[in-house]
């Protein structure tokens, strides 16, 4: 048993390049976010007008912005935002989505139909339009942006959970649990949910990447993270204004977004391959 587990552990990551590259990138982003909590080369929000729009140098590795703020420090602190948005938005989507998905499968037909059609409609709203509308209702800011992105995630997890439960409901281990006198919610919680957890985790990783993109878009429009706190999307907006004077400003925040999304997408792909070999190589 130990040998099997050991050999599997040794074998899988080597085969699964996506997983390894994704895990390394995500690990680096998470590490950057953690380090930035207690250390950044400069204060990311402190202005130094005399140093404005400088190119990369030994003093400022990625240069400075229009207010003389250090780009590296702002990119590092921006990582905190992205990780936080991903965690909260996926957390909201997953917790409400899973609960809804479980609830409808154990409810009567019309409840299931009504809830799932509403989920379809929420999902049909273009994601960014949905988020802009919600942020307009709730007011701009990072917390409301996270809620808006999270709400868009709910239908995704509700559908996934519902589908998984419907498939698992007829499985022998579930029927056995019922025959032992277990309650519906207990069976769902203790037997069915652990069996669909892998697909939820994979979807969660992919939605994490989508959440980072959505937050960047909202911040770009001025609806996400507010001034003076750094957000990669907001930095791109500011960079666009100074594009003619300092073209380099637009490079690093965009690169940080792309790298994080790439990392989470690769990690999601890799985890799907690890957890569900039947889907290996699928789009």
């Amino acid at each position, binding site marked *: 048993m130990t040998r099997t587990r050991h050999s599997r552990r040794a074998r899988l990551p080597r085969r699964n390049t996506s997983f390894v590259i994704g895990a390394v990138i995500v690990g680096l982003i998470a590490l950057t976010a953690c380090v930035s909590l207690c250390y950044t080369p400069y204060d990311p929000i402190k202005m130094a007008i005399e140093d404005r729009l400088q190119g990369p140098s030994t003093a400022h590795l990625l240069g400075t912005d229009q207010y003389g703020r250090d780009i590296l420090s702002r990119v590092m602190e921006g990582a905190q935002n992205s990780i936080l948005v991903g965690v909260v938005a996926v957390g909201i989507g997953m917790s409400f989505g899973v609960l809804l998905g479980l609830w409808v499968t154990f409810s009567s037909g019309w409840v299931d139909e009504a809830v799932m059609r509403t989920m379809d409609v929420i999902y049909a*709203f273009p994601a960014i339009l949905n988020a802009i*509308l*919600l942020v307009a*209702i709730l007011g701009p800011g990072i917390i409301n942006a996270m809620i808006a992105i999270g709400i868009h995630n709910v239908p995704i997890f509700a559908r996934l959970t519902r589908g998984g439960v419907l498939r698992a409901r007829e499985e022998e281990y579930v029927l056995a649990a019922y025959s032992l006198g277990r309650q519906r919610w207990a069976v769902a919680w203790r037997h069915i949910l652990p069996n669909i957890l892998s697909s939820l985790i994979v979807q969660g990783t992919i939605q994490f990447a989508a959440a980072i993109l959505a937050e*960047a*878009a909202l911040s770009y429009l001025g609806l996400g993270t507010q001034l003076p706190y750094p957000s990669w999307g907001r930095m791109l907006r500011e960079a666009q204004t100074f594009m003619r004077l300092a073209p380099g400003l*637009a490079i690093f925040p965009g690169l940080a977004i*792309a790298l994080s999304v790439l990392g989470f*997408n690769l990690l999601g792909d890799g985890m799907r391959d690890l957890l569900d070999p039947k889907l290996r190589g699928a789009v």
Partner: protein
Amino acid sequence: MAAYLGRRFIGFLAALVLVSLLVFLAIRVVPGDTAQIILGTDADPSSLHALRERLGLNEPLYVQYGTWIKNLLTGRLGESIRYGKPIGELIASRFTVTGPLALLAIVIALLLGIPLGIFAATHRSRFGDYGVMAFSQFGLAVPAFWAGILLMLLFSVKLRWFPAGGFTPWSKSVWGALRSIFLPSLSLGVIHAAVIARLTRSTLLEVLGEDYIRTARGKGLVERTVLYKHALRNALIPIITLVGLQFASLLGGTIIIENVFYLPGLGRLAYQAISARDLPVVQDVVLLITVLVVGLSVLVDVAYVLLDPRVRLE
């Protein structure tokens, strides 16, 4: 088949009712007095009251909703508070930007994505395949608005080939209008090409492993005929589905790119209307975009059934 189409149509109508309700309620729960926001904090009470009356804001919610739907069904879209123009006219003029922009983006995505996918599938596990897959992964990761900024930096700021923003109306110059929408379309198109290339590759690989392809090769057909006449034809069905869905998502996705390039399209109209609390415009534009998205996905489902006899039989 007729029963299926009927079911889909009823589902579409139900979705429309739900969407209209959600849009209506979402806008009504925005905190603050709309009339106050429009006229400013120093507006006198009589003008505030008059504006509330004009907008129907003093009526109960169900009356407001009923009036809105009745007006929509009779083609009376009302007037924009911000622009003081009929909303129908406003939407029609903005659609002349968003429609061609989305269309050109899809054309670019297809022209790039399908050949890349075919190339990757026919060069499986070789350098070219890895290159296409890497492009596809990066395409999925790069935000369209960053791609837009980078393209603007290169082609507008450095090379000065295209305008850095704004829109030349079609009536003034077709060439100028095309130049205005080319970079935004390219930024969206390249991103969507990544998804199309990925799907084309995987679908083609799946089809190339089928028995009928082996039979075609066994008959002595040249590889080009096998690939384009037998394999690609069958692989195109899921790609058509994806393109339909992508076109729908592009209509929503243009919001950001229109803001990057200062294009007066539907997305920018929706964004500006939300910011300015131009409620009649927000309601109509959001509903229009969502109806287009839902409608396109229904059309895609129907096209899928029509194109694939196996699905029809199921």
